[in-house]
Each structure stands twice: as structure tokens, then as C-alpha cells.
């Protein structure tokens, strides 16, 4: 007979250790949520390429290493290098909240500028306050059964960001949520995993812009050992409310960024979700939107810039549950070297969702003969009076266009740059917030300038 513990998954062992502490500090319902998530995770563990949703994206290495979370002592901020400031040049109010390795760092955050009524807080604080409405929100949109990494996040999250925008709040404000990875080597720590959890709740007719940024701190992770960034964001968008959400991933080194963003939209509500990804070893973004009230809509807009042997995978899912909703989806990938892209776009139109209006497009620009793109639109339509289109292209720079530009005296390199920017232009131009357009432009320049 072997000891029961020998056969336990390392994650389960770790969970048992942590469970005692959580029971003492957090509300009972959160502990129940964590236990259910852990049970769901153990059903399948870390997915393998046999799993349909993980066919092209191999994360098995995460099963072979021991993931170590931060120990719960928040950083003073002094050991962290310069924090990237994406919001430079923004002319609106900026509320900044910074987490390092999944833990809130007060010294790097500035929450004082939040306009009255709008709350930006570390999730841990809100949970300690035992606010009742949180129980109905947290875990209500992100499914642990079908998404192993959502389960992992739900079981292990230590902290995160809670943004609450009260009904009618239309302050011109940008909430800048910064998640840094120090990890590997920084200050002698062995931290190599973070599971930050974000919860955004918008009341009726509320409007807010949230910029979620994932990056390395100045110090790391710079080593060759893997690091798992495993964030989950839930957004609950009330009637007639609008969330403009930017997710910027600028990971480095051997980071596995495996993330999920889940939104539920009430009647006449709207989500603009812009995703810009660069760097790291592997970036997987699951993005699921439920359109739950008539008149609701979403625009999912993404740009991936991959180099080296990076893999960037977007799995999106739009659920049209009710009539008269519109969804738009535009993803572009620029792939160099031996990088790979994956796009899987599901659109479900439920039987009642008449007058659904959906457009999906996914285009990849392959700049190297060894780069690879896998794209799969997946439309399941159970209503009969709908308008849904999809299109996917994979191509190289057009030699005729290149010759045309060069024949006018434009240098070959400049001509290539113009065409790459042109390829991404409709996605970049759709980003209403200027600093993001600037960032996207410089990412494209970087990939060409190597």
C-alpha cells in the first residue's frame, strides 16, 4: 500500500497546506468555492494536447515543475524595478493598482485619485470586509469545470483587483491594473507562479476604462526556468453599462501566461475588449462573453505579435443567449521566426436569440517560412433569423504591394514596415485609447527591427 499522499497531485498537496490558513482568514463561501475548484481541477489536471481545447498548445511542462507562490508577505515595493507606465500621456484621471506575483503592493499603487463612488481595491481587502454582494459575483461567470486554469486560479488566488463602478457613474477615469512577475532570481525568491483574480462590477449605465497590464518587473523573471502567470478576470456589466477593457501582455523570458477573461452583459450593456500580446514563451487567452440581455453587444479586438519560438493562442467564445445582440470579433496575428499562433472562435446562438448580428474575422500575417498559424472558426447557430459571418486568412506580405511601394522610391525595409502596420491597422485603429495605439505600433516596429 502506498501512502495516499504519494499519489496526490502536487497542486492538491499544496492546496491542503494552504486550506488551513484560508479557513482562518477568509469567508466560508470563498473556501467552498476554492474546494469545488480544486475538485474540478483534479478531474483532468493540467491539460494535454489530447484535450480538444489544447490541441496546439502544449503546457505539459507546467506539470513537471513545482510551482511556488509568493508567501503572502506583500512586497514593500523597494525590491521591484521600474514599473512600466503605459498611461504616460493619458489626459484623464488614472487610478493605479499594482500587484507583484499576485500580491497587492501598496507602495507602488495610487488609489487616492479614484473619484467618489468608484472603488478600486485589492480583492483580499474586499473579501475581509465580508461584503455580501461579492458572493453572488465572484466565480459566477468564470467556469471552473470546463477551464482547468480557471479552476487553478480559483483554488489558489491570493489577491487581485476589485473595481466597482456604481450605477450612473460616468467619470472619465482609467483604472490601470498592473500585474508584475518578479519571480525567478529576483531577491533570491523562488516564486514562479501567480494566480491574480480580478472582479469588475459595473452598475446600471456605468462607464469605465480598465487597462490590465501583465509584465515583468525590472528584476525578472529573467532566468531560464518557467513562470506561470495565471490570471482570471470576471466582468459583470450591468444594464446599459459600458466597459472598455484593454489587456496588455508584455511577458518575458520563460513565462507561461495562461489567462481567462469572462464577461456577462446585461441588456443594452457593452464590452469593448482589446487584447495586445507580446513576449513570453506562451500566451493563452480564453475570452468568453455572455450576452444575456437584449440590445447588448461586444467588440473583441486582438493583436498578437510573436517572435522566436513563442506561441500565442486565443480561444474566444461569444454566447448569444437572447435576441437583438451584436458581436464583433477581429483578431490579427503577426508571426515571425518559428512562432505559432492559434485562434479558436466559438459563437453560440441559442434558439431564442433571433436577430443576432455577428461578425468574426481572424487574419494572420506569416513573416517567416517556419512560422505557423492554426485558425478555427466555430459557429453553432440554433436560431433561424440571424446574421452571422466569419472569415479567416493566413498569408505573407504581398509581393506586388511591396514592389509597388519600392518602385516609388520607398526603401525595402520601410515598405515592409508600412505593410505590416497596414495589416494590423484596422485592429489598432479600433482601440479608442491612444496610449494603446502607440504601444501596438511600437510592438510592430520592434518585431521588424530585430
Amino acid at each position, binding site marked *: 500500500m502506498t501512502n495516499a499522499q504519494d499519489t496526490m497531485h502536487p497542486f492538491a498537496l499544496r492546496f491542503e497546506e494552504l486550506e488551513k490558513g484560508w479557513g482562518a482568514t477568509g469567508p466560508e463561501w470563498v473556501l467552498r468555492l476554492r474546494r469545488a475548484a480544486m475538485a474540478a481541477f483534479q478531474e483532468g489536471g493540467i491539460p494535454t494536447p489530447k484535450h480538444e481545447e489544447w490541441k496546439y498548445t502544449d503546457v505539459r511542462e507546467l506539470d513537471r515543475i513545482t510551482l511556488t507562490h509568493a508567501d503572502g508577505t506583500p512586497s514593500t515595493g523597494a525590491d521591484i524595478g521600474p514599473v512600466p507606465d503605459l498611461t504616460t500621456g493619458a489626459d484623464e484621471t488614472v487610478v493605479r493598482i499594482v500587484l507583484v506575483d499576485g500580491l497587492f503592493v501598496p507602495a507602488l499603487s495610487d488609489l487616492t485619485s479614484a473619484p467618489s463612488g468608484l472603488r478600486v481595491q485589492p480583492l483580499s481587502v474586499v473579501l475581509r470586509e465580508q461584503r455580501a454582494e461579492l458572493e453572488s459575483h465572484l466565480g459566477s461567470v468564470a467556469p471552473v469545470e470546463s477551464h482547468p486554469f480557471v479552476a487553478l486560479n480559483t483554488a489558489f488566488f491570493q489577491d487581485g483587483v476589485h473595481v466597482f463602478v456604481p450605477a450612473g457613474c460616468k467619470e472619465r477615469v482609467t483604472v490601470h491594473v498592473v500585474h508584475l512577475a518578479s519571480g525567478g532570481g529576483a531577491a533570491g525568491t523562488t516564486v514562479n507562479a501567480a494566480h491574480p483574480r480580478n472582479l469588475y462590477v459595473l452598475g446600471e449605465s456605468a462607464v469605465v476604462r480598465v487597462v490590465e497590464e501583465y509584465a515583468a518587473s525590472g528584476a525578472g523573471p529573467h532566468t531560464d526556468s518557467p513562470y506561470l502567470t495565471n490570471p482570471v478576470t470576471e466582468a459583470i456589466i450591468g444594464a446599459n453599462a459600458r466597459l472598455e477593457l484593454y489587456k496588455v501582455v508584455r511577458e518575458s523570458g520563460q513565462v507561461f501566461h495562461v489567462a481567462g477573461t469572462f464577461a456577462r452583459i446585461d441588456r443594452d450593456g457593452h464590452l469593448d475588449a482589446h487584447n495586445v500580446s507580446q513576449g513570453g514563451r506562451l500566451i493563452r487567452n480564453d475570452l468568453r462573453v455572455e450576452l444575456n440581455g437584449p440590445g447588448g453587444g461586444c467588440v473583441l479586438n486582438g493583436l498578437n505579435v510573436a517572435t522566436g519560438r513563442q506561441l500565442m493562442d486565443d480561444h474566444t467564445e461569444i454566447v448569444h443567449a437572447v435576441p437583438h445582440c451584436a458581436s464583433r470579433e477581429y483578431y490579427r496575428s503577426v508571426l515571425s521566426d518559428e512562432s505559432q499562433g492559434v485562434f479558436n472562435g466559438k459563437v453560440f446562438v441559442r434558439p431564442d436569440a433571433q436577430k443576432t448580428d455577428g461578425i468574426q474575422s481572424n487574419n494572420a500575417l506569416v513573416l517567416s517560412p517556419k512560422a505557423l498559424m492554426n485558425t478555427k472558426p466555430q459557429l453553432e447557430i440554433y436560431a433561424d433569423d440571424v446574421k452571422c459571418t466569419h472569415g479567416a486568412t493566413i498569408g505573407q506580405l*504581398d509581393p506586388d504591394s511591396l514592389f*509597388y*511601394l519600392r*518602385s516609388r*522610391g520607398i526603401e525595402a525595409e520601410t515598405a515592409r514596415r508600412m505593410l505590416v502596420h*497596414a495589416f494590423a491597422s*484596422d485592429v489598432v485603429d479600433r482601440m479608442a485609447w491612444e496610449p494603446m495605439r502607440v504601444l501596438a505600433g511600437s510592438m510592430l516596429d520592434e518585431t521588424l527591427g530585430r
Partner: protein
Amino acid sequence: MLEIKNLHVQADGNEILKGLSLHVGAGEVHAIMGPNGSGKSTLANVLAGREEYEVTGGSVDFLGKDLLELEPEERAHLGVFLAFQYPVEIPGVNNTYFLKAALNSMRKERGESELDAVDFLKLVREKLKVLHMEESLLGRPVNEGFSGGEKKRNEVFQMAVLEPKLAILDETDSGLDIDALKDVAAGVNALRSPERGFLVVTHYQRLLDYIVPDFVHVLYKGQIVKSGGKELALELEAKGYSWIEEQALAAESK
């Protein structure tokens, strides 16, 4: 200014130009006519530097330089301009941005300072008038959604802004209505000068009513088989190309 000697060119293994020779002097307008498949467009594209064509023999000297050794942009900097038979649509690249980048790369090459937005706009507005082009075309992506006439006007407009030394027009007249044809010809004629040479490739004599050439050459099966003055174009109009074909066949059988 342009000296082509015994030029042989292949595409996909087929020989298209078979020993073509041509001299174009500054200030001259040369028309190249000929039936479909004779090699007219190949000649235009080879001079501009399109890579799909393989030069297997002969030489092209332009202003004392070996043109065939140069990249397409280097040829442009030297003063070669090709008005495309099928102008390329480039979504996402704004017409103004494109043309300003092109002009400034030329100016940089000539050691001139780059034009700022105000001076650039002043320059292009004048040129637009000659071609009866709407200023709104400047704000649109390069050639995207342009009508056939708008595309050809845009080619001549670019030529007017870039002021080349050798302008090659590849069937710029094909498919144009009479108004567009007149505008395109007016744009070309406005550029005629003692320093500038023109190579006008056309299938139809009609264009030459408006752009009167100094020389007309007939290209047939990859060679120039007949050269003459502007009256040769009228003769071709009256008799058709079969007359040339018969003459060429007769010459071959001798």
C-alpha cells in the same frame, strides 16, 4: 539617357524579350506599340526592377549607370518611374502618407530636406487640379476601392509629384473613358520637358492623339520590328497589327 542593348528576358522559363534594343534621349517621347503578348509590359516592368523577370542577356544603361544592377527603389531614386498597368490596392496605407514617404525618400536621396506637411499639401493640391482629382482621394488607402479611371489618374498624379527623369507608362490608357484619357494625357503633357524622357507603352493608337510621340516602335515577339515617327501609329491604326505580323513572317522566311 536610356540605352537598351540586345535585351533578353525570361519569365517562368519562356523567353519574352529576344534581343531588344532601344535608345531614348532626354526630352523624347517614345511610344511602344504591339499586339498582345509581344512583350510590351515585360519591357516596362523589367526597367522598373520587378523580380519575377530574369534578364538572360543584354544591357540597360540609364544616365551612365547599369540599371539592371539596381534595386527597384534605387532605380526610382535615379529617376525611373513606372505607371502600373494594374495599380496595386494597399488597404491600410493612406495615400497621403504613402506619397509623402515616397517623395521624402527621393528628396533625401537627392540631398534635399524633407517636405513638411504644409508644403507637401500645397504641392499635391496643384497637381490634383491638373488631373481633375478629388482631394478626398488623398485621405483614402492607396488605390483601395478606386475606379479604373481613378487608379490611372492616381498613377499619373504620383508621377507628377515625384517628377521622374524617365517616365514609363504601361498601358495607362487601357479601359479609360474619354474624359479620364484626356486628364491622364494632360497630366503627362504638363510634365513634358527637355530633361525628361517618356516611354509610352500602349495597345491603342487613341492615346497618341493626346500624347503626341516623337518616335513609334512596334514590338513583336520580343523584338522591335519597325520604328518610325508618329505617322507609324496612324498606319497601325488603319491596317491593324496583322500587317506587321505578315512582314515579320516574310522577313523570317527569307
